[in-house]
């Protein structure tokens, strides 16, 4: 499971405050803890007004790179901001994201084409979030056509079939799962990813929904996730689900994660 640490995101109130107040220690600490918990990428999303976005991204990326070598996942709804942030990163990472909306692919794909940068692709277009599996797969095929134009191998793409909120759409998980199965069937080396927290928005005891979703999503083929890597319960579910689905020979990764103290009850002091 590719773990993309989600915590350095200005849409989280405590992080927004740290960004506003230029709290360097807070950012460095957050990056370090996510890296130590095993994040494969660190998502960086400034979530500030457009005119301040790039300078804020630079400030965040510089701080993160002071404390860890974990690659950056550059996150912005503006493709121009994404592209501007790439040279700020010491090593190739992940772009979050493209979709078939507007000019996102036109701006981002040419820049990452001849590099090793990977890219998250959302299955939506300028008409919005497609309301059926068929329509999402249509958007998927359109994205793959564009990827082929630029010679971007499927293994560099993390497809996010989009998770809607269960509270407003009962098919939120089932639609996601059907898309994930079909996508992996058509391109076995492609990655399927998702942000977690959407699913439980609007319901009580969100953690329960998030954890159940994680297990069901892993079963559907999700192999990349934008989560809080320091969330031991969630991480535990990932390892447990993988072992249960024959994706962990002799359960050795599960046992390792436990032994390293990443999952399971915290050792008594």
């Amino acid at each position, binding site marked *: 499971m590719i773990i993309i640490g989600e915590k350095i995101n200005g849409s989280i109130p405590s992080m927004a405050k740290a960004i506003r107040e230029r709290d360097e220690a807070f950012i460095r600490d957050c990056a370090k803890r996510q890296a130590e918990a095993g994040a494969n990428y660190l998502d960086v999303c400034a979530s*500030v007004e457009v005119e301040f976005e790039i300078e804020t991204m630079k400030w965040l990326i510089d701080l993160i790179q002071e404390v860890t070598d974990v690659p950056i996942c550059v996150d912005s*709804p503006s493709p121009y901001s994404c592209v501007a942030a790439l040279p700020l990163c010491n090593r190739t990472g992940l772009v979050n994201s493209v979709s078939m909306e507007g000019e996102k692919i036109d701006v981002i794909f040419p820049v990452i084409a001849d590099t090793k940068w990977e890219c998250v692709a959302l299955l939506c277009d300028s008409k*919005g979030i497609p309301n059926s599996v068929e329509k999402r797969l249509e958007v998927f095929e359109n994205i793959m056509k564009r990827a082929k134009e630029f010679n971007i191998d499927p293994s560099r793409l993390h497809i996010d079939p989009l998770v809607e909120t269960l509270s*407003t759409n009962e098919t939120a998980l089932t639609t996601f799962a059907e898309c994930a199965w079909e996508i992996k069937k058509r391109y076995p080396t492609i990655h399927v990813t998702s942000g977690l927290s959407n699913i439980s*928005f609007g319901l009580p005891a969100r953690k329960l929904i998030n954890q159940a979703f994680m297990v069901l999503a892993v079963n559907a083929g999700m192999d990349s996730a934008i989560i809080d890597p320091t969330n031991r319960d969630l991480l535990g579910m990932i390892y447990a689900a993988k072992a249960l689905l024959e994706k962990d020979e002799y359960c050795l990764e599960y046992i390792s994660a436990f032994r390293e103290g990443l999952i399971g009850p915290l050792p008594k002091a």
Partner: protein
Amino acid sequence: MSKIQEISKAIEFGKKKIMKGLVEEALAEGCKPIDILNQGMIEAMSVVGEKFKANEIYVPEMLVAARAMKEGVELLKPHLAGDKSAVLGKFIVGTVEGDLHDIGKNLVAMMIESAGYVVIDLGVDVSTEKFIEAIKANPDCNLVGLSALLTTTMPSIKKSVAAIIEAGLKNQVKIIVGGAPITQEFADLIGADAFAADAASAAAIAKAFVA
């Protein structure tokens, strides 16, 4: 409990299936349709909005309450025909250009409809032109709502509000804005008439505008 109170409770708890029976009984007992609407239904949704604001109920519970209200209003419609006081106005709403988020916008549309407005929901990623076209095409529209979830689409709200003002439409409509990054400050800066932090507040503001 009076019939009207029973209807109120049925809406609060999303009991769509018993609505038909209750409304028929209320009418048979001589309750005035406009009273059933105002005291039994609009008031109930107001309570639902406040409970949601206080985190006492959750999104799905709001949706089923609105569904029960819709059922009730449909049943009352033939009896309200011609009663102008039943309709407070027309509300045009949308999520602005570049933004696909709509849960908040949908809840606002639901609450303002429940407050007695006719609602035209333009959906998501709505351009300035589309807002203006819709307002012009609906001279009875007296309220427009613009929503955005992303800081990067706040400029779209600013642009659309400016265009509505420039097109001279402020004589016709009041403008209300909302969404996670939106503040009262921002609303004042761009010339909107109001800012609502949640659906219940939006409905209260909508009612106050025509009081």
